[in-house]
């Protein structure tokens, strides 16, 4: 820590100052190296510092279950192009908005966290990050509704800005209002964006995947950009393109050479069966020698999604959802659904548990090179759209 501490001896009782330990700082710096440009690297670093300080505080003082709302890969794909970090706690969603600014004249939130139905949170937290001195200050918050109704929109950087007089400076107001007036609405209505066709999306990805485009979020009209950004699979693809990485979501490659590291971090894995074990499983379930699995948590319980190639019919795949615990059942109301890459439904793309069942499954025929998206209701924790490439 430097000696010219400017903040700490001036802190008032109302200031919430959180520590960034040297170890946290080093880790944040290491974790923010895989980006296309120094500016996205720096943005990732600030977001990472804010996230680690705020999470430690929330977990220790409020709820040990508080967590980042995205997987590490999901976070990277967002930070590559925009500012802001989702945190979830007690069923609410918060977006941390880090800033290096020394003044608190406004809370400036990128449009991606405001106008996209899948991403909009209940609250925004203004987080001042001071890397030199190793601290973070939570300086104020507002709800989605307040930002939309009282904030102004700045087209120059596509952000909603709330004047400091409308920002609630004392974070305790958030906790107390959730206890005493939980019925107070936090969210304004959001109209979904028009869907983006696959052609259009591929076109955009080619154009914006070029790292020489420094601000992809401002390079095309927001409805196009927003639809691309909201789709976790496309966002991930954009990140890969900008970093010159090849597609890491190839199912065939996973089966042959092993699951890519990004996917392993998300809970994907490969399961190989001995021939004898295959026989014992009987003919009802697929009898391939290797299948893919993805670990999931839904409403606090562990589940497993399996992707199984058909033994005889090339190009036919089976998706299965089951609980991780042997003999346990999937509760009624669960849905397993497959969609095309541009999120369109197709015939027989869904299996619904009308009562508690052992497993849900769908069989599909897929062309080589085609992409599929899986969805489950209720939403698994940290769910972000993934495109599986066949």
């Amino acid at each position: 820590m430097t000696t010219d501490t400017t903040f700490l001896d001036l802190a008032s009782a109302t200031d919430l100052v959180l520590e960034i330990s040297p170890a946290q700082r080093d880790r944040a710096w290491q974790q923010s190296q895989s980006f296309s440009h120094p500016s996205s690297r720096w943005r990732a670093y600030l977001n990472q510092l804010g996230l680690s300080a705020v999470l430690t505080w929330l977990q220790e003082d409020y709820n040990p279950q508080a967590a980042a709302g995205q997987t590490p890969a999901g976070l990277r794909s967002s930070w590559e192009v925009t500012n802001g970090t989702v945190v979830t706690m007690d069923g609410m969603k918060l977006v941390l908005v880090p800033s290096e600014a020394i003044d608190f004249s406004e809370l400036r939130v990128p449009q991606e966290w405001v106008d996209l139905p899948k991403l909009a949170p209940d609250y925004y937290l203004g987080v001042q990050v001071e890397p030199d001195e190793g601290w973070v200050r939570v300086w104020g918050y507002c709800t989605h509704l307040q930002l939309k109704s009282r904030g102004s929109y700045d087209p120059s950087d596509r952000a909603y800005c709330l004047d400091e007089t409308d920002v609630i400076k004392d974070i305790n107001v958030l906790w107390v209002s959730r206890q005493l007036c939980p019925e107070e609405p936090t969210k304004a209505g959001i109209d979904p964006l028009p869907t983006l066709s696959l052609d259009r999306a591929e076109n955009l990805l080619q154009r914006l995947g070029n790292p020489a485009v420094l601000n992809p979020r401002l390079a095309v009209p927001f409805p196009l950009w927003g639809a691309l950004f909201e789709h976790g699979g496309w966002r991930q693809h954009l990140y890969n393109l900008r970093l010159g990485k090849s597609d890491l979501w190839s199912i065939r490659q996973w089966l042959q050479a092993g699951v890519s590291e990004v996917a392993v971090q998300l809970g994907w894995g490969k399961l190989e069966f001995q021939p004898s074990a295959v026989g014992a499983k009987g003919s009802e379930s697929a009898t391939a020698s290797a299948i893919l699995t993805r670990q999931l948590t839904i409403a606090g319980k562990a589940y497993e999604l399996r992707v199984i190639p058909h033994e005889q019919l090339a190009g036919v795949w089976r998706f299965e959802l089951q609980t991780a615990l042997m003999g346990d059942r999937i509760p009624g109301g669960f849905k397993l659904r497959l969609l095309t890459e541009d999120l369109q439904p197709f015939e027989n793309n869904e299996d619904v548990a009308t009562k508690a069942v052992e497993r849900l499954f769908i069989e599909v025929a897929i062309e080589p090179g085609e992409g599929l998206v899986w969805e489950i209701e209720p939403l698994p924790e940290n769910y972000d759209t993934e495109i599986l490439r066949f």
Partner: protein
Amino acid sequence: MRPRQTIIEIFSTFLQFESDRFSGWITDPKLRRSMQNRLNSQPQPETSENFWAIYWYKVWQSQPDSAARAHLMAYLQEPCYWVASKTAASFASSQYNTSDCFQLAIAQIDKVLKGFIPDRGSVLKNYASVIFSSLMREILRQQRVVDVCTPWALLRRISHKMLLESLKAAGLSANAIAAYILAWNCFKTVYVPTAPTGTRKLDSPDLTAWKAIASLYNTERYSQLNPPGNEIQPEIVEKWLLGCEKAVRKYLYPAQTSINAPMPGQETGEMVDNLADPEQVSLLSKSIELEEEQKRQSQQLQIQGVLMAAIAKMEPTAQEMLQMYYAQGRSQQEIAVELQIKQYTVSRRLTKAKESLLLTLAQWSKDTLHISLNSQVIKDSTTLLEEWLKTHYSPSRN
């Protein structure tokens, strides 16, 4: 400092400094006449300063452009002075002395008036102390960073809005401001720190960086500026950004003479005489005032009761921290040293302790005053709580 004696003085005089010391009270003749007229209109002139504070506050609410603001500014000279001298003394290393702190804070009087909620037992003078104190700390805090930042570091450390306000204050045209802001955005995109610390010592961009900034500007201007304006060279971007930096420093630390506070002795213009008369009668009604005063006192007592009970239920360390912070006026850092814990722990525990008090206060408002709660009402309670803590623990009470 010599306290003011009469009601007329309290609402019509301004503090004067001489080499950073209090040197006397200067009368504003128009405010004095205005105050004299109000007193003369009463059969038995009211002598409670609280009465007049509420009176002028209510006039200010219905007529914000009237002389009421100046009367309240005169009234709030004392709390502002005490906070300024305390703040300047605690942070001796600062360039700012008492009179600087005083000037900076009193200029923010509109924030005090807009934030004040007269019901639920709040007292304007106490509320103003709380706000002045946090405003001064915030200004000192910013100033310390600004003083050690290189121009390039500073440009990265200000908000969009702050830059916009600075450029407006510098008198630039709307088109010029848009161009400067675009240049600033391009600078921030291209030129970022490349090490995890040392952000305040950021060096000047080299020629390659300037070229990249100019080139980004020249591309973006077509979509961002209307009209897009001329293509610019790296030297021009550099010149613009230094202009931005200068505007920001000037905006953050205006020369003392330009501070928008009425100068002592200066007439406050034609506002004084344009007060609507019918307002006075009802506002001055003695019975209403008495009733309000009684209501306020009873609410203060109730708040006192519930909050003291809540504090008594807290853990001893939490009570101790509140005592140290509010009664002994120690900083978070000093408390940390005393209790041999980290300052971050002090900050978090104080926040937690105040959460339970805020919950108590909000619950009381709901149950007793039948106020339907929302986050705005709870937000208003935070300053009320802060005001109460400062008054409750203040040494003069014990």
